[in-house]
């Protein structure tokens, strides 16, 4: 059993805006690219040009179709999925070696790969499917919130954010400190009704998802009224009325 910190100074995490995520997968490969050469073991790929390629990804995007019961228009919701850096992270408490831990300074859930024995218990314990065992390195891989970017003094200050946030073309991903009520992520969560994923599980995820705005509700303002009865007054009547507007 590994202990969670009683308190973290910061609660770093992501806000993902489901209203603007177009499902383009940019965050998926930016994450793969950075973390393939970043913290810990590379993210390997097995049989990449073969019949059944598979590899380690720390962030994946799924598309869901929603068909309202009331017969409304069907909708597609694109849903990026990665570690939520839970406050009560079951993946940490289940770890037999202490390899899986939550950092006390910022709340990032990390794997100390030197101590990881690849038993896979944490992946079983995570209800969100956010961890992947690397088949080559045989260690557990997961989102690090780009811990090797966000404090990295070799990067320009504006680049000290997770690779997925930096690359997101629609700006649907935001990074920040949820412990700071004035941070962008806290404000977005307040303003847009950000929600944790499956809160009933009691894991207290830090990340928040902004729900899609209501769709397919054309404003119910009045429709355009014809200038006049064209049938009765003819094209000439329409032209007179229309062009009279210029004067």
């Amino acid at each position: 059993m590994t202990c969670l910190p009683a308190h973290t100074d910061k609660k770093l995490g992501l806000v993902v805006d489901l209203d603007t995520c177009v499902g383009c997968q940019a965050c998926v490969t930016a994450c793969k690219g950075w973390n393939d050469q970043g913290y810990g073991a590379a993210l390997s790929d097995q049989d990449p040009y073969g019949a059944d390629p598979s590899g380690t990804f720390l962030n994946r995007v799924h598309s869901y179709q929603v068909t309202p019961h009331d017969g409304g228009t069907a909708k597609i919701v694109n849903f990026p999925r990665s570690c939520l850096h839970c406050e009560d992270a079951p993946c940490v408490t289940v770890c037999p070696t202490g390899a899986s831990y939550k950092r006390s300074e910022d709340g990032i859930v990390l794997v100390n790969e030197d101590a990881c024995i690849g038993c896979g218990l944490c992946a079983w314990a995570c209800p969100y499917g956010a961890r992947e065992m690397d088949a080559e390195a045989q260690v557990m891989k997961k989102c690090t919130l780009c811990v090797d970017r966000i404090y990295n003094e070799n990067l320009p200050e504006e680049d000290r954010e997770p690779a997925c946030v930096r690359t997101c073309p629609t700006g649907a991903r935001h990074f920040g400190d949820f412990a700071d009520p004035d941070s962008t992520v806290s404000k977005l969560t307040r303003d847009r009704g950000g929600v944790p994923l499956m809160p009933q599980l009691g894991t207290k995820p830090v990340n928040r998802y902004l729900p899609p705005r209501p769709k397919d509700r054309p404003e119910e303002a009045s429709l355009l009224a014809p200038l006049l009865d064209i049938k009765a007054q003819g094209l000439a009547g329409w032209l007179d009325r229309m062009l009279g507007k210029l004067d």
Partner: protein
Amino acid sequence: MGQPKIDTSPKVSDEIRKTTCYMCACRCGINVHLTSGKVSYIEGNRDHPVNKGVLCAKGASGIMQVTAPSRLQTPLRRVGPRGSGAFEPISWDEALDLAVSWMKPLRETAPEKLAFFTGRDQSQSLTGWWAQAYGTPNYAAHGGFCSVNMAAAGIYTIGGAFWEFGQPDWKHTNLFVLFGVAEDHDSNPIKIGIGKLKARGGKVIGINPIRTGYNAVADDWYGITPGTDGLLILSLIHCLMEAGKIDLDYLSRWTNAPLLVNGAEGPEKGLILKNAESQPFVIDRRTGMPAPWDGQGVEPDLGAVWQGHRTVFQHMAERYLSDDYKPEAIADQVGIPAARIRGLAAELSRAAFDQAFTLPIKWTDFRGDTHDHMVGRPVSFHAMRGISAHSNGFQTARALHLLQIVLGAVEVPGGYRLKPPYPKPVEAHPTPHFVTAPGKPLSGPHLGYVRGPENLALKEDGTPWRIDKAFTWENPFSAHGMMHMVIPNAHAGDPYRIDTLFLYMANMAWNSSMNTTKVMEMLTDKGPDGEYVIPRIIYSDAYASEMVAYADLILPDTTYLERHDCISLLDRPISEPDAAGDSIRWPVVEADRDVRGFQSVLLDLGARLGLPGMVNPDGSAKFKDYADYIVNHQRRPGVGPLIGWRGDGSKTGRGEPNPDQLARYIENGGFHQAHVPEEASYMKPWNAAYQDWAVATSFYETPQPYLFNIWSEPMRRFQLAAEGQGFIQPPDHLRERLKVAMDPLPLWYPAYGDEGAAEFPVHALTQRPMDMYHSWGSQNAWLRQIRGKNFLYLPTKIWTAEGFVDGDYARVTSPHGEITVPVAHMAALNADTVWTWNAIGKRKGAWALDDGASEAKEGFLLNHLISELLPERGDGRRWSNSDPVTGQAAWFDLRVRIERVGPQAKAQPQFDTLPRVVPKGEGR
């Protein structure tokens, strides 16, 4: 156990080199990180005008493309039967000598027998210039099967088009309406724009049979029936006109709505009425008398009738106020209830007129009138292949521009803005050039904008000059050529036989051809003499695509990180509405194989052939390589491929070549921008400050102000010919079709694919995902894990009626062919439409993939269902499956029927495994 200490500031890389992406056509700026001389990470360049730091899934996966096992390694010469894959490696000298031994005699005797067509070519100003110097009329890039309807309809109407040639005024627009967009096109800029608009609380409306991607995040979605967009648009115009919600001031000042249409019977009927000086004129509201169209202070009268001639505006009113365009009359056809159509018209009106605003920008128009502000109309549109890849696509794209125009929303704050060198009127474009003479260059560029029948590429006997039959009565405005007709026509010897087919980066033996199975046969077919019907094929590509096996000579290209390129203002630049921009690629890593950048090879071939412009007086090569050309070539004195840092480095646009130019580009992150002055930022076609800036920046030699062409005179000239006027006459069998298709005022007619489609009730579409570019993505170790398989998506209506269950396959039958493919259910889809992702399906053996790859086993193409010719219509003739105006391939006219066949092991048809020209890929 304590928390481990970790290094949170690791060194990122040894070096960053900034160049231009080529994982698709967007041309984003990228930072390529190098560690120990190898590419270690790729991210977006924050300073770059196109992507502003962001990067898509493809861009970040470029690192896997540079090492892809599918990369060709060395020049190859065919030694066995064509298509057998029997090649031998040869040296570059041997390869180039062989090519010259084929090309040189042709140039000296019959240059048209070389057909040079390029696919995803970003160097058309070079490849076109080369073909012009060679002297063959047979050159074009891939626009004919891509989106020429979109490009040409834009040029003929507003002097610029959608996609990279313009964009919404993202800063001010409140309502953004997308029609049928391909999700990979201009993809990062549109994604950035949608994100910004939504963050401001603006609204996105998607009009598309399929609700994925941008349409998934659209606040409102209209699942239109394919091919009916034009009808919907004209109905919206009907609603707006009926309610008087159109911008009269804009129409009267900036469009040809107040010009008079000649109403007198005879050869001038329907042309714009001209005065004794051959100038169009308007009736001045102040005097009721004729006045110059560009006269200072003139107030053009939209409603004028003069000596029996009526204004364009009167013709518009007559056509669009007709009951034919009432929402109630068209709702069933477009698949959208009338009330929703009326609601959409009201939303457009609300944004354009109720939310109108002004910007305090003082400006002077071309008439000399000054204005102390600009009126903003915060509604903007974007459209792409979804509306243009139909046989009514040109008229539909014109209709969409007309909709923007009546709202007064083009080139105004909040509306659609063009990017330099656009706007540019038809008159500023060349006409097509095609007359050949042995040993001589063509007198001008191949591709251009036809003004009337006299510009058609027809010989005196009425036969086409060009192998693709571009610029003929069958498709007069084929401004991008018709690459999809080259192989079928060359095989048929219609209009004539060719000798050497020279292709660059175009997968014509697979996903870039209609009727793929038949095209593969055409490529290997032999005549009675035992020779190949298409005698010689030279192909250049960087990767082992399906096309490679069908070449006789392969010229292996580099990857995009190993080469020089220029994204030029002479071609398709990276401008923004507020700045002209161009950019370069440069070898950020050295190629580790015996490959050469195609453009350098082309210049080498040109020198060996002694082509004008490519050799010095002593016969030696004028350019060492493409980089040398980029810097030193001058198209006109002082105007070259790049506008930045010319002369001594201080000149922009015009200036003598600067040997230091590429170094300056590299220093600046690979691009250059020339900013539009603030007073010139909107109203560009009419804004004197913009016109002057455009001349100074080298886009044209004199100011070119113009009016938007609601009424198209070039189109009317073809209609007149079809009516029997003039000496140059169309063949009789095309008269009726020309009368409709060349209507000078936008209209809608049913797509040709709908004809005789009673047994094929379902529309079938393809679209490209945001994470794959054509066929390129499947060779990428990361991207193919994201999308290694495609399904045919079926709407609920078909899914339920046919009793489909997960895991099923369907037999899909079109008038032309049959395929059997895996299916999936999708509710967010037009009820009569099925669709799939384009070009995921691969042929076994291609792209260095395993024979059992899902792309080859379950992946599939719809191309097998689409013929390049329409079914015979009873008169013994078969029309090309193309738009009758431009010749754009009508991919999306496809009609099918669907039958459930239960689970299957693989998709059909399957083909023999392509012989491998590179070994199957193993590890990364």
